[in-house]
């Protein structure tokens, strides 16, 4: 196998500034050719809507008459920033994201470690763990909404019978409890995803280090904290950022599970309300753009502080 790994890599390593060979140019062209359909599709389904949202964010577009939209500069953005309801939703979303992703990471790590051990039926179990992740979010949220029902829900029945609570709780109605309920459903649903990512990383860890640790007489807990965890740090950070991005733009679980007031609304819910319930596409788009900026900012800070390299080894 004498092929260069990628066409561009071959070109870049030419320290002596040789012009790229015909073969390399040919390969580069082919690469672009193969990429074109994807790029066009991406531009159509992601680029165009995103650009349009940004344009609307600077307009006073209204659903009742979209053609009359006019450029209003930062006015729409300002009305979002001045709305205390928007900041309530930002706070709710961050609380939700931080709590649920932390829980998912810890639980995912534990499950991944368990699944990494050799035992009969491991393959079956690995597949079974994925079931919650495979169920569409709306379906699982609906399912949990029934389980959380205050009168005939199974959760209240269970807790009452073991004496954890003395009277039925309205899980999805009270703002504080419903955030708890939403976190519980999200953890239930997404821990398998986390576990799978971590498991994949665990299987890449070199066995010789563990042998060395064993010879040195390190116990299992010491091995975990001093060998496994440092080696896992890179993949773990990447997995966490994946989940954070997902959690910050959460919409469906809240929409299905909670009472729908501002007290229990994520940022995406706020955008939807402004756009479609109030018909204010302009202001709604401004908040959607802001949501995008907040997520981008958070990701950048996270990557800089955590020194995560998405491209290569961390």
């Amino acid at each position, binding site marked *: 196998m004498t092929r260069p790994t990628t066409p561009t890599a071959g070109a870049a390593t030419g320290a002596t500034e040789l012009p790229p060979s015909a073969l390399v140019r040919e390969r580069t062209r082919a690469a672009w050719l193969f990429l074109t359909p994807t790029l066009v599709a991406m531009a159509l389904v992601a680029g165009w809507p995103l650009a349009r949202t940004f344009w609307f964010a600077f307009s006073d577009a209204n659903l009742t008459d979209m053609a009359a939209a006019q450029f209003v500069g930062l006015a729409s953005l300002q009305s979002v920033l001045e709305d205390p309801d928007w900041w309530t939703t930002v706070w709710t979303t961050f609380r939700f994201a931080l709590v649920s992703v932390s829980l998912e990471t810890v639980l995912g790590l534990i499950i991944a470690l368990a699944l990494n051990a050799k035992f009969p039926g491991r393959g079956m179990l690995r597949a079974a763990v994925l079931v919650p992740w495979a169920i569409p979010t709306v379906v699982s949220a609906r399912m949990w909404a029934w389980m959380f029902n205050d009168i005939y829900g199974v959760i209240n029945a269970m807790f009452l019978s073991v004496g954890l609570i003395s009277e*039925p709780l309205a899980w999805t*109605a009270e*703002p504080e409890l419903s955030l708890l309920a939403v976190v519980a459903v999200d953890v239930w649903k997404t821990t398998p995803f986390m576990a799978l990512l971590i498991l994949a990383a665990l299987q890449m860890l070199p066995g010789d280090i563990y042998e060395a640790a064993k010879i040195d007489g390190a116990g299992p807990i010491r091995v975990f904290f001093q060998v496994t965890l440092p080696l896992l740090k890179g993949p773990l950070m990447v997995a966490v950022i994946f989940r954070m991005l997902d959690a910050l733009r959460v919409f469906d679980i809240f929409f299905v599970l909670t*009472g729908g007031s*501002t007290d229990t609304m994520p940022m995406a819910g706020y955008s939807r*309300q402004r756009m479609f319930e109030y018909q204010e596409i302009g202001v709604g788009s401004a908040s959607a753009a802001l949501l995008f900026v907040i997520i981008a900012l958070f990701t950048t800070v996270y990557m800089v502080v955590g020194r995560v390299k998405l491209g290569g080894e961390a």
Partner: protein
Amino acid sequence: MKKVLAGLVAVVALATPGLARAEKLVIACGSVGKEADLCKQGAEAWAKKAGHTVELMSVPQDAGQQLAQFQQLLAAGSSDVDVIRIDVVWPGLMANHFVDLKPYFPDDVLSQHFEPIVKNNTVNGKLIAIPWFTDAGLLYYRTDLLEKHGQKPPTTWQELAASAKAVLDAEKKAGNSKLVGFVFQGKAYEGLTCNALEWIDSFKGGTIVDQSGQVTVNNPKAVEAITFFAGLVGNVVPKGVLNYQEEEARNAFQAGNAVFMRNWPYAWSLANSKDSPVAGKVAVMALPKGGPDGKSTGTLGGWQLGVSKYSKNEKLAAELVKYLTSAEEQKRRAIEGSFNPTIKSLYKDADLLKANPFMGNLYETFVNAVPRPTITGAKYNQVSTEFRNSVYSTLSGKGKAADNLKKVETKLKSLGKDGKW
């Protein structure tokens, strides 16, 4: 022989212009309770008669979400739906997207309907929808439980709270731990606006925004009303109500788990259906007054049928609307689903009154129902959302009614400056 006949029919059909093609219409009607079934039966009956086909578009139960769905479809100029069922508070919001139905409905047809509804559906001289059924909030109660514990049907909300408490205490002692006192629609959606408007109006605290467009939501009577109801939550009203829409309330009541329920007329036929555990043990009355000096009231609801401007079959769609809003169809829907007709003469129909005695007794409630502040026009939805969010906060224990209503007042005043919406 059959083949020859079929051939003949085909030849005739081809030769007669305008008769030949069977068109497909799409109608969006409701999905609460039996609505979808009744709508389907009605639409199919028309389709069979007219030789066309009608498809139902699925819509969410929550009216606010339906509105969002329609707004998106209509703003995109989509011809995917021909006939749309619209709420009594929507005409001001979506008039642009509807066909003027005046040419299809002569005055003598329109004058059979309740006049205020026809007026409500006329925006800038354009008749955008035909009344289909009307609604007002009603109080349902369990006759068996009230009798058993020596309680009378309540005339005021305070009496309701007291009798609910009495029944609840006695039943809890007897081991009925699932029973709750009173259920209504408490989720932060349009239904809560309807419920809370009834509370305030029954305490004589006005209608959020008055007829002239002035914001009146923050007044001592309104504060008293919301404070009173916030005090019931966690008491005779289960906290879970804060996530209830119509169907959740009905499920609790129909399963026998609630003494009182506030709901629309549709719940009557379902609560009394064959497989309902409370069939025959339910009575319905006008909502209680807010104290001895209060008044009995109910929020005006109801739905209309309009034809989308983007429909490719405007004429046929108007015919479908004509059929569905006709006296026969309204009567059928009233008997089978207890949907209140909008045609005045039907309230004297013996069959209809036999199936729904309350439609006769409570005629005044329906005629004098309190309308939501539609003077706010295109901003109605924002007004409603601000109002219900503040009520929701108060009910869930976040802040006092006085403070929350004051905040709404400020917001509404900035939305509609000097009463101009």
